[in-house]
């Protein structure tokens, strides 16, 4: 038996993993990408003849395929694994809960396609060798790849956009509010079922079809339904223990270099558990300085007669209140058409909105490993961002006369970051300016856990830009790869 040896293994195929893999392969490298979830059954993947597809949660597959795993300290064993092909992974903790997803393309299936750059000075001051200028070109690359642009007032066909909405309440201010660019195929004119539960017809651009498919013939090997369980440092690199759920087998793979991009939640799980088993050592700052990007989701049963907010782009746009500058975004329940439910309930949900408040929180939470479970601490008393969002939601309740429902003091984030941060030294951070773990050469971190601070805006472009930067570092240090990547 000869062991499988790989030069570079990328773990996870979301914004961090797909970007790293795509850039490395475009530069001539051979990359094996391990993704725990399946290829999703969308038109593009079907057209590419990938046979092992799993449905997005819709119709009769909704209840089976919506959830992959729920973890909470009060569950037996700390978690329930519901379906290996489930889309969402929920982690409940009383101080901070996290939601992420699973499948080739990672978060791009469930995200609202808001492709936003953070403030210009975001990358400054975290490492002497890094600045906004170093990363800028990587933002341009991913924004262009995702086909990102803002809704224009000339886009008459786009329903429910906040900027073209003539029935928008007067207290919703959009003047001077930067609207998000969206990775969306506007020209197709299809505006339904394209948001949190995925986009079967690829109206929303996703990473699997946009970045990965074109490279399958060119040195990229994607192994779907392969969940990495352990990363062990060896004399020659790394030994990965992988659950291959496609063939119901445990595999051992060797890699010279590993790029870890399993998303903040799962990267932290993997690093902590590998360290607890003695497979990795060091990383004294692991778990330090995590945050939720100030996320507070809310449900606003505005029940507006004659409206159908469930159609349109994945997000309907950003706003503030006239007297409060908190950054708020509104979304319809896009996708509700494909969820089995009584038609009266569906009709009602279409008239309601989801609101999300967000902002650059302190990122001063911590993650630790207790038993075999990730425990999150997120002190809220320091966070004026959350307090401002709660105030804004209360204000909307009183301005509209319709109560906004949200979990006060129990934040839930879809934008977790930090815990394996970029920084100057081993004492205060996990990775250096190349994305390499300070005290584990050859292990790179290319996802949300690497971010040095809260972007304050949706983070996918920032994660992809960071991953692009890592790929560029790997390419410049590797003689076999040559093309220009940024």
């Amino acid at each position, binding site marked *: *038996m*000869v*062991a499988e040896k790989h030069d570079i293994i990328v773990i996870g195929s979301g914004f961090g993993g797909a970007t790293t893999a795509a850039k490395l392969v475009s530069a001539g490298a051979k990359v094996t990408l391990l993704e725990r979830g399946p290829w999703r059954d969308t038109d593009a993947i079907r057209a590419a003849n990938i046979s092992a597809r*799993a449905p997005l949660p819709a119709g009769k597959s909704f209840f089976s395929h919506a959830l992959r795993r729920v973890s909470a300290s009060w569950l037996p*064993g700390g978690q329930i*694994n519901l379906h*290996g*092909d489930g889309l969402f992974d929920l982690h409940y903790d009383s101080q901070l809960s996290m939601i992420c997803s699973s499948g080739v393309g990672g978060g791009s299936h469930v995200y609202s396609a808001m492709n936003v750059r953070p403030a210009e000075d975001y990358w400054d001051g975290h490492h002497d060798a890094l600045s906004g200028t170093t990363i800028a070109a990587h933002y341009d690359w991913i924004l262009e790849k995702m086909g990102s642009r803002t809704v224009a007032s000339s886009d008459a066909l786009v329903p429910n956009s906040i900027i073209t909405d003539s029935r928008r309440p007067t207290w919703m201010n959009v003047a001077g509010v930067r609207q998000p660019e969206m990775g969306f195929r506007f020209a197709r004119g299809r505006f339904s079922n394209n948001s949190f539960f995925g986009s079967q017809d690829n109206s929303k651009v996703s990473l699997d079809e946009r970045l990965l498919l074109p490279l399958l013939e060119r040195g990229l090997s994607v192994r779907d*339904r392969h969940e990495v*369980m*352990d990363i*062990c440092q*060896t*004399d020659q690199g790394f*030994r990965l*223990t992988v*659950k*291959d*759920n*496609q063939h*119901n*087998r*445990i*595999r*051992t793979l*060797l890699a010279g270099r590993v790029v870890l991009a399993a998303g903040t939640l799962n990267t932290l799980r993997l690093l902590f*558990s*590998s360290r607890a*088993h*003695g*497979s990795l050592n060091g990383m004294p700052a692991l778990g330090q300085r995590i945050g939720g990007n100030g996320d507070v989701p809310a449900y606003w049963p505005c029940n507006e007669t004659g409206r159908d907010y469930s159609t349109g782009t994945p997000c309907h746009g950003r706003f503030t209140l006239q007297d409060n500058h908190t950054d708020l975004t509104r979304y319809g329940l896009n996708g509700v058409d494909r969820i089995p439910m009584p038609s009266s309930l569906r009709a009602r949900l279409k008239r309601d909105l989801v609101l999300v408040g967000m902002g650059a929180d302190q990122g001063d939470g911590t993650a630790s490993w207790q038993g*075999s479970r990730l425990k999150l601490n997120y002190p809220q008393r320091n966070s004026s961002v959350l307090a401002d969002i709660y105030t804004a939601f209360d204000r909307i309740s009183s301005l509209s006369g319709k109560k906004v429902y949200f979990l006060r003091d129990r934040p839930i984030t879809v934008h977790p970051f930090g815990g394996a941060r970029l920084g100057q030294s081993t004492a205060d951070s996990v990775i250096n300016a190349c994305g390499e773990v300070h005290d584990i050469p050859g292990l790179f971190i290319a996802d949300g856990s690497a971010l040095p601070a809260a972007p304050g805006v949706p983070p996918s472009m920032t994660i992809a830009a960071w991953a692009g930067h890592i790929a560029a570092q790997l390419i410049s240090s590797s003689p076999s790869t040559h093309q220009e990547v940024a």
Partner: protein
Amino acid sequence: MTQISLTTPIQLSDWRDQELADLFATLPVGAAPSGHLHGKLFAVHGLTFLPRPLARGLYALLSTPLNPWRGKSFSNDKGSNHLLWLNGPALGHYHISQQTGADGQHSLWLDYNVERNPALLRRIRGEARQLRKDQWLCRMLWQTDRGQTTLLWFTLQGE
């Protein structure tokens, strides 16, 4: 789709014979064990048809006093198995050397073909490689005229 139910990443009692052989093939000979080491049995030949959770339960039973084997001791180029407690009665002695293993790579080789052993035990061979600091993954082989067959796998763990 069947999912492997794997509770912890390196709970080797969940692994099948071939999966362990793949892992074994990636391991270095590493440092030679010395002194008394705790043993744990799993992946017994012929039981691979059992569903993983059932096999895990069975191997957990084999770690209770129902199974008198406690582990092995190593001293220079000799060693033996111990029953009942870690340096309890010795049975099954072996000679230790470094050799090319069944997969063509270096292993620590435990050869039971020594005079002190009863004839039956002399057909046993053991092969060990280092899994991590103070832990070795080993397979027990049965030597026949036609070659060797893996009987079971075990780990040895320092105290």
